[in-house]
């Protein structure tokens, strides 16, 4: 045997043991390689990769989009809540003078920022103008419209329960016939939104489980397809961690692309809706425009999606890798 044929063995003796730093570097390099290798593997079958990513994307876009709409609705109603007013309808027999003095009394309350007095006559004029029941009202003997005090609560006191308290207080004046809270429907809206937000959480939870299963199943199939390779790697000394790694990174990529797709879907949905919403806001003379996704939301969705991808593949790998052993 010639000396050069022997060099593979001679190297054994000459080679120094790699140091800790070298080992760590090699380890990280290997991770980076598998990271991009698994991406390359997915890229080879773009169609099936996109299919899986699309399923994840749609599943995540749904709760994300709903949640965003809900946030918008809450902001919108928050704007209305600030303008919540209390209408005091005074008794018919209360004179103009007494009504004015009551208005002054109420104006002095700390909870109140403004009181507008609408006399019976002014109220009638407004009603005529707006309703068009001119002829019908003329037929009546006396003015049916009560004098009204429009009370705007102080900004520090415009929380729903505080406005309710104020209304209770105002109801006690003997001149007052009837108190109406303008914010009642806002409170109902809040209650409805509360139900919807719980619904979104439940929906999000179920769809997340769905994503977990989709990724798990995809990885399971990938494991089945690479069965021979896994056996060979086990035969030449591959640890479970080594075999697991590419599948986990594949799960990571599915999650990443699924999350990206979800964000794109939500973004374009918002774009489509913002036009009509601004139209509607314009009709209400409101400056409202759709609240876009902020950086935090984007990061959360991406992280969640990647987490689900990793989790799904972890479950599949744990379940199926154990069964594959050399025979």
């Amino acid at each position, binding site marked *: *045997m010639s000396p*050069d*044929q*022997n*060099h*593979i*063995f001679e*190297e*054994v003796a000459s*080679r120094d043991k*790699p140091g800790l730093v*070298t*080992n760590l*570097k*090699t*380890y990280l*390099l*290997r991770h980076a390689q598998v990271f991009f290798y698994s991406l390359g593997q997915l890229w080879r079958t773009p169609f099936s990769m996109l299919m899986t990513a699309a399923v994840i994307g749609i599943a995540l876009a749904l709760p994300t989009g709903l949640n965003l709409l809900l946030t918008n609705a809450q902001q919108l109603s928050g704007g209305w809540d600030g303008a919540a007013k209390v209408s005091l309808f005074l008794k018919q027999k209360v004179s103009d003078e007494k009504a004015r003095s009551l208005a002054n009394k109420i104006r002095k309350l700390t909870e109140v920022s403004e009181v507008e007095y609408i006399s019976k006559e002014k109220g009638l004029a407004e009603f005529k103008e707006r309703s068009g029941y001119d002829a019908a009202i003329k037929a009546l003997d006396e003015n049916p419209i009560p004098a009204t005090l429009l009370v705007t609560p102080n900004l520090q006191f415009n929380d729903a329960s505080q406005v309710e308290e104020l209304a209770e207080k105002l109801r006690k004046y003997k001149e007052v016939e009837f108190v109406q809270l303008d914010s009642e429907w806002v409170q109902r809206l809040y209650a409805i939104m509360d139900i919807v937000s719980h619904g979104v959480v439940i929906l999000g939870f179920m769809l997340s489980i769905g994503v977990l299963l989709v990724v798990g199943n995809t990885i399971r199939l990938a494991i089945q397809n690479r069965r*021979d*390779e896994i*056996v*060979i*790697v*086990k*035969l*030449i*000394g*591959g*640890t*479970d961690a*080594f075999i697991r790694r590419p599948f986990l990174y594949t799960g990571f990529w599915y999650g990443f692309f699924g999350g990206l797709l979800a964000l794109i879907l939500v973004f374009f949905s918002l774009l489509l809706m913002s036009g009509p919403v601004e139209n509607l806001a314009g009709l209400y003379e409101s400056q409202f425009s759709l609240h876009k996704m902020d950086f935090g939301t984007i990061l959360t969705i991406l992280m969640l999606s990647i987490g689900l991808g990793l989790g799904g593949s972890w479950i599949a790998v744990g379940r199926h890798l154990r069964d594959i*052993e*050399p*025979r």
Partner: protein
Amino acid sequence: MIQFIQASKRYPGGHDALQNVSFEMDTGEMAFLTGHSGAGKSTLLKLISLIERTTRGQVIINGENTSKVRKGRIPYFRRNIGIIFQDHQLLFDRTVYDNVALPLIISGQPPREIARRTRAALDKVGLLNKEKSFPITLSGGEQQRVGIARAVVNKPSLLLADEPTGNLDPELSWEIMQVFEQFRQVGVTVLVASHDIDMIERLGHRTLSLKDGRLVQDTVE
């Protein structure tokens, strides 16, 4: 290097693949394992590489009792053993180079080391010029040599071969055996399962004969 002490293997279902097999092989020794098919050759190799475990008796490899090797340590245990298969067991979606480099990647060698040792192993089996080819484009003999390069690239102290020349013509078989012979000369223990009696006799190494799971002949030099 290899020590079998009254080793038996009974498969689930009651089939006795090996019964009370005892023998010893020294470091740097080369031996053939013969017997008709089903005599237990493959099972014996599987006991050494911990693909199977003994049901009775002991197998001690390089001073380590295989029955004491925990499942999690099996990969590290196998890195010291080079295994060559009749059907090569190559990865067909990777180049010859990547196939041979795999054991080094698995054991976490630095990249420079991987390149050097992979080329050295390919050079050793005379396939350095094919490193960028895919296994499917190679002949049976060449594929088997890729398998050998992969088995030795990690510099194992023990080389196992299960019918390595089963599908090859006599001339190629002889070449493969010469490669094994070279490894033996540099201190690697080599155990080859084969039923090619002619060639075994020409090489004149120690021969262990199995029959129905029992060791019936051992021509200790």
